[in-house]
């Protein structure tokens, strides 16, 4: 039992990171209408931005959820940086293009290479770490539930939840969400209705990349930082988005949760008598994903929006 709880706890942390990545990707997917292969590297970019900023603010006193206040400032800087870069990329690269969604996809591969090249040139390829002390499992939970969860894990989950809730409010409480969906559905008609689609798209890039950056920062906090972390996780993030149903932000959350959990729960299979090695964990996740798609060909939230 404690074992399962432990796996679930691990899964929750990992899912939080994936969810942040997949929401942003899903936003871009539905509104700019292409699979953005630079999204992973946007995550990395945010993580490096925060790394540099943490070098400056790191010393700021006080802690929240076991993390220094300076870290959250750095997080904000990373998010802002990613947003700025994404907006610039949109203006300089994507917007002037006269091509279809696959053409944009290919372009985004080029963009990803450029981001990565800049990061690799500036920081090298070796891994780095935010200089924050690890404190080990929270004794209370370890004693009562026999589940090891660190403050850092809690911080990741809580921050992700806050960001997701913020996005939810943004989409539900303002007309922005509706405008975004309208723009995604039919950009011409959106303009005819008076929606300033240019602005909607800019906002989408800002929100999507900032969330991606947050995902990247937490990812780096969780493991470590190198120029490939975002790219390495991109496939999983894509799987989450598709599994959830393209274009559905809430689907992306669900997909992220599911994929993150699947990833961490594979050892359970052996416990229940299916001797499948951990090496097949990604394979198991993919097979389950395909199976889900066969039952719901448009993703879990496919027709719900």
């Amino acid at each position: 039992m404690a074992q399962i709880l432990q796996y679930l706890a691990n899964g929750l942390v990992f899912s939080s990171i994936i969810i942040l990545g997949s929401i942003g990707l899903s936003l871009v997917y539905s509104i700019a209408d292409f699979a953005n292969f630079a999204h992973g590297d946007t995550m990395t970019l945010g993580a490096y931005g925060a790394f540099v900023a943490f070098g400056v603010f790191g010393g700021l006193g006080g802690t929240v959820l076991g993390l220094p206040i300076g870290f959250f400032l750095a997080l904000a800087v990373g998010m802002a940086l990613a947003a700025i870069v994404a907006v610039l990329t949109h203006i300089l690269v994507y917007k002037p293009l006269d091509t279809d969604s696959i053409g944009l996809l290919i372009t985004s591969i080029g963009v990803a290479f450029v981001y990565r090249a800049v990061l690799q040139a500036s920081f090298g390829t070796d891994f780095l770490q935010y200089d924050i002390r690890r404190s080990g499992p929270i004794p209370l939970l370890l004693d009562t539930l026999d589940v090891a969860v660190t403050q850092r894990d809690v911080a990741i989950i809580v921050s992700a939840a806050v960001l997701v809730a913020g996005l939810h409010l943004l989409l539900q409480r303002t007309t922005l969400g509706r405008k975004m969906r309208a723009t995604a559905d039919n950009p011409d008609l959106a303009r005819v209705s008076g929606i300033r689609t240019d602005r909607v798209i800019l906002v989408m890039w800002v929100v999507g990349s900032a969330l991606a950056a947050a995902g990247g920062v937490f990812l780096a906090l969780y493991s470590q930082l190198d120029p490939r972390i975002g790219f390495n996780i991109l496939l999983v993030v894509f799987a989450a988005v598709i599994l959830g149903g393209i274009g559905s932000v809430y689907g992306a959350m669900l997909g992220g949760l599911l994929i993150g959990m699947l990833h961490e729960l594979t050892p359970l299979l052996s416990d229940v008598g299916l001797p499948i090695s951990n090496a097949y964990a990604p394979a198991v996740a993919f097979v389950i994903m395909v199976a889900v798609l066969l039952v719901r060909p448009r993703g879990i939230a496919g027709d719900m929006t």
Partner: protein
Amino acid sequence: SGGAPEDGGGGDGGDGESTDASTDSGSETYTIGMVDSLSGSLSAFGQRNQRGKEIALDDINSVGVSGGELAISQQDDQSTSQGGVSAAQTLVNQEEVPLLIGTVGSGVSTAIHESVVQNTDVVQISQNSTSPNLTNFPDLLRMPPAGKAQAEAISSLLNEDGNESAALAWINNDYGQSVGEAFIEAYDGEIVYNEPHDQGQSSYSSTISSMSDTDADAWVFITYQPEFATMSQEAFDLGVTDQAAWYGGDSVKGPKVLESAPEGSLDGMKAVVPSVPQDAENYQAFVSEFEERFGEEPTSWSAYAYDAVVVSALAIEAADEFTGSALMEVVRDVTRPEGEEATTYEEAHEILANGGSPSDVDYTGVSGPIDLDENGDPVGLLQVFEVVDHAYEPAGFIEG
């Protein structure tokens, strides 16, 4: 910026002319090729290799090679065999280098050897590949010892320390697989967990969780630094660092690993690393030079790259002419123990320049005695390190 400037006198392939000994004047430039993983999944190794290479080039060119200079034409293998073969094609067939240093991944080195180097007049020296498979290619030389010796060393450590059962986590590539297999073969105790993991994952908590589910006395990690760093942190977060004794191979030891691990969490861990005695003068000099330039300690991998370049230069110095066959004839000799021990390029160069024959020299590098055998493998000297008070302390030697 901390980045690796790759100039270091590296030959610029762009002009296509800087191949072999170019002029007949006093200062000739000897251009050899180097394939390295500058991008892709192994690029962290590549970066360290570049740093080692750079120091080696400076050390060599401050003394000179056969009255000239050594230049290295550099190509990236993108950590893939396709990229490696293309890189080697460029160097071997286009730039016609007689000696090729390359590369990191064992599979990539093999691919280069099979499809480009074999049957040509070119010597290949791998700077980082440890797979036992390379032993089957006697013409494919390498600097690090085959992983087998290391695996045996780890298992005898485990046996000595009285561990009756072990959990083994290995990285799912040629290196991890072969070292892992060798370990299992050599180990007397029971293997209660034996699983590969993929490189570059963001989380290894399922691996750690599974290991902690076993009651193994020892945990053995055959993996790379970033992966091990993640695992050790996750183990700390799960509060299981003290559950078993930890052991690891060479690639889990590194300053970064310690830096990123919580204070004290790795204490007691033992790692087996092929190297010269840490107090050896040449090694100390290498370390301080490296630290001065790049602000961090070198790893054994940078040391191999350094030695690969030095051995190449010594071969050029010792050979009659700048061709693959001539180099092949002498390259083993300059490292063999028959001659007089030289611990720096300068010393070795001196012996050769004073009319010494190739076998009069025994270059003992910053990575170990080298002593290339007929299969092109070095005789590794293995050193055991133990983490004490969050620092690596030497804890004895094992002959490979």
